[in-house]
């Protein structure tokens, strides 16, 4: 593994190539026909995703290889997250196939943007270089900025897009500035290259304490924390997300709250856990070196952010009367739980958490999308009153997802929380776990509130049984199966994670 070598290896970026090709193909068909059929566009997207999944599987095998001058790395960390992103987009395509047409929105661009966003996300988990991470992040962000404003005649959608864009670019600036600082901090005239953004080299230099300036490194890390914190929506950088999530079209909200959040966590973990933390094992003797200081302060900062994020997310979610907004805050809270795993430095727990969370959350949003109807009109909790027995299947599915988000045993949500809390406990962050569990208990209140409204309130007026598209039902069924599978039979996935190799473990083994 020589980061200096060019090492062009198209197999290593096959998943990304396939998704880009699918996106371009959708665009071409759209350009050369009068109007692309939603079925065709959806089919191309689904086939592309299936192909990308196959490519990911073909790369699997416990190896750690870098290619393209160390820009791309292939390890199980990347592949696991790639699978999460592919699952996310697959489900999103399924739940929005019919929706795009019902909303009379242009179909081609929608699926094309989704596929480009997915490509960006795939790159974010594959990147082994800060520059590459930035590129992936921007590819994703630009696509999602557009998607937020996709219902362009709707003011809420416009507001959502503009806010997301302004605040998003603002935070990206922090990230970029942080990257520049770290690049500067890694300067060493005796080495080649003299300064670097490659994570592999960076880690080696951090570990041997060959740094130009410690404070510069810390300042850079802080700024990157701001940038990532914004993308995963942790307090206090979560402030944009409720407005954006509420205003964006529901399937896009589902995508934002799962896919782009998971992608940001992937890069976040890659930089902080696999590079910064890995460079400074807790047991190392260098107590006052810049790198152990880095580990200490970022752990503390992450811990405070995790506590704030969980608490703010849950407390504010309680008072929401709009289901989408409630789920936006719930999504913030869940980022907090995932952060608990990051504090513990356990990316496996984080990855399992995200996998569970995306499946459950997309399922929940799928139901909300159907009940909301055209133009997102019915999204207040009052609109859910008494619909339980009028549309039993949907209500039961939504109840399952909400209970799973709350963390009821035998569903994915429980396993995920269990793993995250377990690894934090094992790492000695007992207070954090206690706060997390208390928060988890608080969250039952607002999840149950929706269920209570659905089954025990007088029926709301004007509710008509929604007509379910077959694609949406397929998506829902997959989400339900996933939720139960991960909750009841997580063995296989946990096993894959347990065996997963990454730079950290291979380095430790060598």
């Amino acid at each position, binding site marked *: 593994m020589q980061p200096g070598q060019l090492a062009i290896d198209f197999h290593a970026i096959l998943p990304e190539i396939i998704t880009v090709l699918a996106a371009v193909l959708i665009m071409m068909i759209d350009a050369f026909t009068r109007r692309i059929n939603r079925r065709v566009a959806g089919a191309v997207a689904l086939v592309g995703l299936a192909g990308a999944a196959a490519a990911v599987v073909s790369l699997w095998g416990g190896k750690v290889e870098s290619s393209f001058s160390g820009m791309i790395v292939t390890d199980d960390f990347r592949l696991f997250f790639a699978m999460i992103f592919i699952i996310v987009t697959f489900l999103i395509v399924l739940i929005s196939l019919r929706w795009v047409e019902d909303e009379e929105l242009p179909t081609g661009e929608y699926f094309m943007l989704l596929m480009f966003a997915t490509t960006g996300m795939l790159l974010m988990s594959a990147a082994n270089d800060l520059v590459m991470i930035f590129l992936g992040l921007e590819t994703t962000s630009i696509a999602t900025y557009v998607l937020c404003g996709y219902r362009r005649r709707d003011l809420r959608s416009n507001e959502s897009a*503009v806010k997301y864009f302004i605040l998003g670019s603002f935070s990206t600036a922090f990230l970029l500035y942080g990257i520049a600082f770290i690049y500067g901090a890694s300067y060493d005239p005796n080495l080649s290259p003299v300064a670097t953004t490659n994570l592999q080299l960076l880690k080696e230099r951090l570990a041997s304490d060959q740094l130009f300036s410690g404070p510069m490194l810390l300042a850079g890390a802080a700024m990157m924390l701001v940038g990532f914190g914004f993308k995963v929506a942790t307090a206090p950088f979560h402030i944009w997300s409720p407005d954006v999530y509420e205003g964006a079209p529901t399937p896009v909200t589902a995508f934002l709250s799962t896919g782009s959040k998971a992608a940001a966590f992937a890069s976040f973990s890659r930089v902080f856990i696999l590079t910064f933390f890995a460079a400074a094992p807790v047991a190392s003797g260098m107590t006052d070196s810049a790198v152990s200081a880095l580990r200490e302060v970022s752990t503390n900062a992450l811990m405070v952010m995790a506590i704030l994020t969980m608490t703010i997310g849950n407390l504010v979610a309680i008072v929401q009367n709009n289901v989408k907004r409630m789920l936006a805050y719930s999504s913030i809270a869940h980022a907090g739980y995932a952060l608990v795993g990051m504090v513990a430095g356990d990316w496996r727990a984080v990855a399992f958490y995200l996998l569970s969370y995306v499946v459950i959350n997309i399922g929940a949003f799928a139901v909300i999308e159907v009940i909301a109807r055209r133009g997102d009109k019915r999204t207040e909790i009052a609109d859910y009153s008494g619909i339980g027995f009028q549309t039993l299947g949907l209500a039961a599915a939504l109840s399952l997802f909400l209970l799973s988000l709350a963390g009821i045993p035998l569903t994915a949500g429980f396993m995920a929380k269990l793993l995250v809390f377990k690894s934090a406990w094992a790492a000695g962050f007992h207070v954090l776990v206690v706060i997390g569990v208390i928060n988890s208990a608080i969250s039952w209140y607002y999840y149950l509130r929706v269920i209570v409204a659905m089954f025990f309130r007088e029926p709301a007026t004007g509710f008509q049984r929604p007509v379910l598209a077959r694609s949406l039902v397929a998506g829902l069924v997959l989400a339900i199966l996933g939720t139960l599978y991960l909750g009841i039979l997580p063995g296989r996935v946990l096993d894959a994670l347990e065996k997963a190799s990454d730079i950290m473990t291979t380095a430790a083994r060598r």
Partner: protein
Amino acid sequence: MLSAIILVPLAGAIILGLAGRRMGERMIGLIACSTVAVSTVLSFYMFFGRLLPLPDDARQIHELLFTWINVGSFRADAALLLDPLSGLYILFVTFVGFWIHVFATGYMRGEEGYWRFFAYLNLFMFSMLVLVLADNFLLMFVGWEGVGLCSYLLIGYYFTKDFANDAAKKAFIVNRIGDFGFALGLMLLFWKSGSIFYFNDPRGIPSAFEWAMKPGGADPATFSAIFAGGLTTIALLLFVGAIGKSAQIPLFVWLPDAMAGPTPVSALIHAATMVTAGVYMVSRASSIYVNAPTAMLIVAVVGAATALVAATIGIAQWDIKKVLAYSTVSQLGYMFLACGVGAFTAGIFHVFTHAFFKALLFLGSGSVIIGMHHEQDMRRMGGLKKYMRITCATMIAGWLAISGVPLFSGFFSKDEILYKSFTSSALHAPWPMVLWIVGAMTALLTAVYMTRLMVLTFWGSERFKEASHSDDHHSDHAHGGDHHPAPKESPLSMTVPLIVLALGAVAAGYLGVPEGLSGGAISNHIEHLLEPAIAHPAETNHALAAEDHSTEFILTGVSVVIAFIGIIGGWLWFKRRPLWQPPRLLEGKYYVDEAYDAAIIQPIKTVSTRVLWKIIDVTIIDGAVNGAANLAARVGDAMRYLQSGLARSYVVVVVVGALLLIGYFVIR
């Protein structure tokens, strides 16, 4: 092979759940019954063909389905275990279950949601078999929750009716209390022993029971052991689960209300199988209980008290199903009494015989209810024996069996329990005598209330002719007119199961004739069979018990006399005064429901409306909500919202956050 026993009913449930809506009733009935029939045949084959040929102390067949969870030191498998205990259970669960399915095809004819009913029923069979065949506590818990869910769904089967919904909710909540204890006990067991598996098995997994049985590990017989967090605590927490599921004091209130479900459900779930899951669990965990003497005493006392209290209530009920419901609670009390005095085999034996005669009695009552056109009040019955000959004849068999008349099945098992509690070595001096007296009194009351039920239903004047039907009509069916044509015998699909179960109620007892009674001429198959699967109390005096046949004969004589006193006394009394007004306290079920309502439910309601709602919700949350609503009002005009500078204020928050973070990182 073992997996097929559980999977076939599951397949039936899935087929019926997905496609049942479009099937005809015949087809649904065929699928539901045939899947259970396959399970039954397989169970008999596995038990007689595979398990029994094995040597006595090696009777265990394991089957690993898949590794379920394997995280760190925690391992749980989805694996099945067939041993004498689970073997006996699957035999009667599938056999009785099959005949109840057949009965239900006739009973439920023409009901709305016929497919739904049988889908749930098949799902119940699956869950119950998982519960019994599981080879570890966690998988047992899955089955435990599964049967609870099915019970909830089936009690609330007539979900358009308020009383059915209320009963379902009550069952659900009360069972959650029990399950909470079970789950805690399970966690504590794992915490202490590091395993949730019953036995050592070929996969090399350690066993929780081995830990429980380790020499010198028995808990002292003091009450402080309850809170010591050792075996006694584990045993009692598990017993809390059993109390909930098997309707013992103080959680028995849900079972009588559960009779709101269709009668075959009452027979299958709330008499023969599910409610005995608590007894199964306690017997399965006998290794834990025998080393926790305090827990044993509590189990025995709770069981005896429940038996007596429920029997007294049973005397004073007018609804034919309610009588049987309290009778079930009372008989379950007997089983726990047996477990508590260390006679686990006797408890299981009673489960076995009880499954036959109680299922028979419930199905018989179902037949009566159908024959009476959905009448359940015994005050409006009487003289039915000439209209429903088969039902009457079969129910007589059940009546004699439960009353403990010699040579019927209930006689052997009940006698065994009474004898074992009298001679128990697991308890201290006054207890065996006290428990025996309570048990004997219960036996007397059992004979009385069952005689009352039979006399009021089948003998005496035909009161249904003069009765008016305008007032409280507590039938479990939607229709029921104001005029009653003459009662008529039920169709074959209902009478055949009655006959089969009646034969069982007579004969099932001969598998376990107490040794002292037959002088060893008929060997006690059940006890021999269960011997290896059950742990024995530490200071058991087998030798003494074996020689002491004279005590056994005397005690048997006493119980025979008691049974006949009960039957003859009841007969003479109720024949003359069928409508004798029982004491209000008993008719009102000791006002336990009312007491719970006053002591628990109302205070919770008061707190939640006065404190939680008025103070927290109205003042705090609504205050915040109204604030948020003001904010939301501005969202309507999105442009103004944007221009009002909120996006800018978000930027301020981000910047302040960033500055704090960078400051902390740089300065530290």
